[in-house]
């Protein structure tokens, strides 16, 4: 078997995020949004604080495969500091990316490390893993907007 193929999906930056995820852990007293991937049992909980229309705090908890952990980690990096509409737009762009749809160079840049997850598009069964944390974030943002 060619390990090159494995390298295409599991690029170094992804492995690094999975091994040492950013913004992992519980935010005390902040509302949780939990989503699971029934196929594999992965569970991701996202917590976020929106202040002056900006995402000020954003953390995640949960277990999962390399893809879902790395994706959760880069998600926090990408979305932190953005306004709710900006974050929502970025989630939409990320979703396009992992579905293999073209996105603009600007979006690509904005997504930073997350752009590397575009390789998932060639692994259809792993798209759900990559999207889990982002879907949870989208749901969390919706709930946060409602409370305002």
């Amino acid at each position, binding site marked *: *078997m*060619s*390990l090159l*193929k*494995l390298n295409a*999906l*599991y690029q170094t930056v992804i*492995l690094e995020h999975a091994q040492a995820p950013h913004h992992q852990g519980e935010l005390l007293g902040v509302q949780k949004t939990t989503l699971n991937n029934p*196929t*594999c*049992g*992965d*569970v991701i909980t996202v917590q976020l604080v929106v202040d002056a229309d900006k995402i000020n705090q954003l953390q995640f908890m949960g*277990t*999962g*495969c*390399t*893809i879902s952990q790395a994706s959760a980690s880069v998600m926090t990096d990408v979305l932190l500091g953005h306004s709710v509409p900006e974050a929502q737009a970025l989630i939409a762009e990320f979703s396009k990316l992992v579905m293999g749809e073209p996105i603009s160079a600007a979006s690509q840049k904005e997504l930073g490390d997350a752009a590397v997850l575009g390789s998932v598009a060639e*692994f259809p*069964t*792993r798209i759900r*893993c990559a999207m889990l944390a982002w879907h949870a974030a989208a749901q969390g943002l919706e709930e946060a907007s409602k409370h305002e």
Partner: protein
Amino acid sequence: MAITEFRADFPILKTKINDEPLIYLDNAATTQKPQAVIDAISAYYTADNANVHRGVYTLAARATAQYEAVRDQVAAFIHAPQRESIVFTRSTTDSLNLVAQTYGEQVVQAGDEIVVTAMEHHSNLVPWQQLALRKQAKLSVIQLQPDGQLDLASARQLISDKTVLVAVAHSSNVLGVTNPIKVLAQVAHQHGAIIVVDGAQTVAHQPVDVQALDADFYAFSGHKIYGPTGVGVLYGKLSLLQTLTPAQFGGEMISDVTWERTEFAPIPQRFEAGTPNISGVIGLGAALTYLQQIGFAAIQAQEQALTEALLNGLLAQSAVTVYGPQSVAQHGPVVAFNVAGIHPHDLATGLDLGGVEVRAGHHCAQPLMQLLQVPATVRASVAFYNTTTEIDHFLTTLQAVKEFFQR
């Protein structure tokens, strides 16, 4: 004919996956189909297709005769005492739900107890759990021994005069164990309960005799025994089936219909509402004929050799945990395992890139996963058409994938 020669009958086994020869080790999910089954379906549509049980014309008679002949074949295959005990369904899941929707609805009452085991597939757990919730009955769970085998002491303790129904897998789709159905049936019957057996993981791997087991109901799927998808079997004891009102209505399952009421047809027609999966049933017949050509003696010998290579090969690797019994004497052709520090999904993706198709997930047994304290496992499952070379290749690939993730 050597068992290895039968492999050539499966066209898919000659294909490639990710530019590597396909090594199909997800046989517990569904088996591949021999050319004989594919041809039987094509032949039916090419020469004999008509609706069954309804027409007086030649084509309809031919279709009906072929369809009904498979009923005899299935009865003989699982040693049912008569053809009327064989009901064709969509799948194991459909068969088990049929029992829950008929026997369960009509017999189970508030305060009754239903007993399942800790290793059940969702299809033999959720129908009973939901029935118990509907009926305010109690669901009890027979526990497992540390090595994953059923704890008979727990069974004897849980099955009581309050028990009306014991639902149990003949073989587990995760732990690779086969349960002592005959003993469980005895215990159940002593207490006046019936036993419903999920044979999904058994019928393709060992001879089954529903009378010797004294099973009241026995369910299996065509697609796990080299037959087509969309067809399943429910065996029921004549005396039980005869007392049950059907749960689905329409088509030829009636004897007489007026606006006000309906008289149902005799069994088994009564339980086969609407046009059945005719080509599916005929394909199942072809699969059974094919299996019997090989014979269970040869199949079992080969699958034991494969299981031994698989199980021992896994146990010999570092960081690998195998669930269920650790010795091949107690272990059927399904082996679930994990590698420390590597998520099952990542392992399965790595293996897939090497052409090796294994399952990663909860295997529709979420409560068992909780018991094993894992979110998921990898599962490799063999069929007689696998080869020891394939097992070797699987083990080598697994080693390489491990090294990739452990670096």
